[in-house]
């Protein structure tokens, strides 16, 4: 690997923009409890326009919209990171084990992966979530369980090619076990693929969680941009959409965009045909 993907990410305009936006939203998510008042606090000042007391005004039950906007970042960033990491982890375990073990195990597992790949994840998510009504952590688990297949396929293909490399056969001659080969010799070389997979899954997870909240399946105790958009849409005939509906929509789009940009620039770094001359 002679291409430093990290450097490619920082060097390309798309990559830099993506990193900057994501960094900003992640910092907001970390420090939001110290910046604003309680996002759940209901007051009698309902549907107020922006003022010094409420920079983005208030909603129909008198909650401060700025507080809800900033704390919504926390939910989205957390869903992105956790669901992205969990589904990449499942993909890595399934893909590497299928590639290294082979035989009947590989056949059965890959058949299952291929079958699950054609199922539209968002529809199954709506169905299951409507019945189970998951909390945020349940939602993260559910999303991860529904979107690891694509990654597993790519990881397995790469593992099959890595398996034939000289250093892996050398390790095997020295008596290395399967687990040692997987962790020491295969996983490190898979890192770039896993990172790209993580970025894509994180983006899809944010989108799915927000979409689910938008159609009305969300933990009511959770402050999220999807829920904000859903409630604000009921009042679109009021001028309130300018400070109630647009900010969470723009923040959500920015977060998804940041993952999209990072993924695009990483993929470009890996595909020499698309790399700039």
């Amino acid at each position, binding site marked *: 690997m002679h291409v430093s993907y990290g450097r490619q990410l920082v060097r390309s305009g798309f990559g830099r923009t993506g990193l900057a936006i994501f960094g900003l939203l992640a910092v907001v998510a970390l420090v939001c409890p110290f910046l604003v008042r309680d996002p759940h606090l209901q007051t009698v000042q309902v549907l107020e326009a922006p003022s010094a007391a409420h920079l983005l005004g208030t909603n129909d039950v008198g909650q401060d919209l700025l507080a809800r906007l900033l704390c919504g970042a926390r939910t989205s960033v957390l869903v992105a990171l956790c669901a992205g990491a969990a589904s990449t982890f499942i993909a890595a375990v399934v893909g590497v084990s299928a590639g290294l073990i082979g035989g009947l195990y590989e056949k059965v597992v890959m058949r299952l992966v291929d079958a699950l790949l*054609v199922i539209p994840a968002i529809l199954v998510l709506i169905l299951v979530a409507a019945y189970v009504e998951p909390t945020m952590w349940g939602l993260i688990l559910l999303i991860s369980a529904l979107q690891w297949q694509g990654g597993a396929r790519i990881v397995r293909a790469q593992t099959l090619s890595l398996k034939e490399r000289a250093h892996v056969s050398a390790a095997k001659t020295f008596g290395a076990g399967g687990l040692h080969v997987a962790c020491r010799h295969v996983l490190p070389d898979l890192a770039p693929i896993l990172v790209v997979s993580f970025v894509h899954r994180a983006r899809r997870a944010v989108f799915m969680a927000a979409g689910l909240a938008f159609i009305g399946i969300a933990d009511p105790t959770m402050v999220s941009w999807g829920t904000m958009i859903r409630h604000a849409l009921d009042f679109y005939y009021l001028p309130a959409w300018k400070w109630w509906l647009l900010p969470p929509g723009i923040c959500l789009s920015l977060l998804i965009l940041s993952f999209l940009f990072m993924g695009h620039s990483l993929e470009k770094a890996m595909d020499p045909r698309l790399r700039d001359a």
Partner: protein
Amino acid sequence: MKSRLLNYGIAFLVILCLNFLLPRLMPGDPLQAIYGDEALLQMTAETKAEITARFGLDQPVWKQFGNYLWRLAQGDLGYSFYHKAAVSEVIAAHLPWTLLLVGSGLVLATLAGIALGIESGWRRGSALDRGLLTFLMSASGFPSFFLGILLLLLFGVTLGWLPLQGARTAYGGLSGLPLVVDVLEHLVLPAGTLLLAFLPGMYLLTRNSTVTVRGEPYILTARAKGLPDWKVRYHHGARTAMLPVVTATGLLFASRMITGALFVEIVFSYPGMGSLIHNSLIARDYPVLQGTLFVTTVLVLATNFGVDLLYRSLDPRVKDAR
């Protein structure tokens, strides 16, 4: 081919099991899970007994599953206490609108995506290419429902050019040409949203494909023959560049657009499957929710399968490889 068929078979089976097991695995009365709290209140003891007997809820699970499959095979998706009608009838009333929306969105996004992709990829690195790439990449970060909301606010609320919701004017009593115009007017914003949401994917695919084709030797040959630029671009370049666009990857947009349309419909209260899902969630009308999701999932599976078949007949290399 057999192996692809098996994939869809397994996927279908997983969906069936999920639909069958979910309500029955929920804690509490299965009737409550199948119909929801509200419907349960409307039922008399006799209705409950009749439904329990009809579903065989007192029988072993494998018998219930057989029963479920048998009724499904006959097109019986259950009964909605909210709509006071069979679920299949409710869905039949909503499905055409979704098909109209997805169909028009798909045609628009494909045509625009291919045209822009070829022009942009051919002049890679030019101002046009950079501008389009940045603009469309940014557009693709917007979730479809937020794009819809933006269009709604701009053209519906602020400018007032287009109707805000629905698929036609309620109680308009229109027929003939005015009805067609009315339906089209209501279609513009939702279909426009789908166009914007799916144009970037189609565009990027065509652009990347055009970029790779542009360096091929036969393009140089065509140029050397002295052919005009547009002829080289469309007759020689585009034809090969189109391959991934019309085949598997490209047509998969069809199935993705079906799920995308569900969200867009909710924004515009467009009376298709998406609004049906939304309303049945609010009304806790579980039979309709389950039936709608089932039909939509089968629709997506069928589309994907059709794409797979088409892929094979369009690209002979795939057939030979087997």
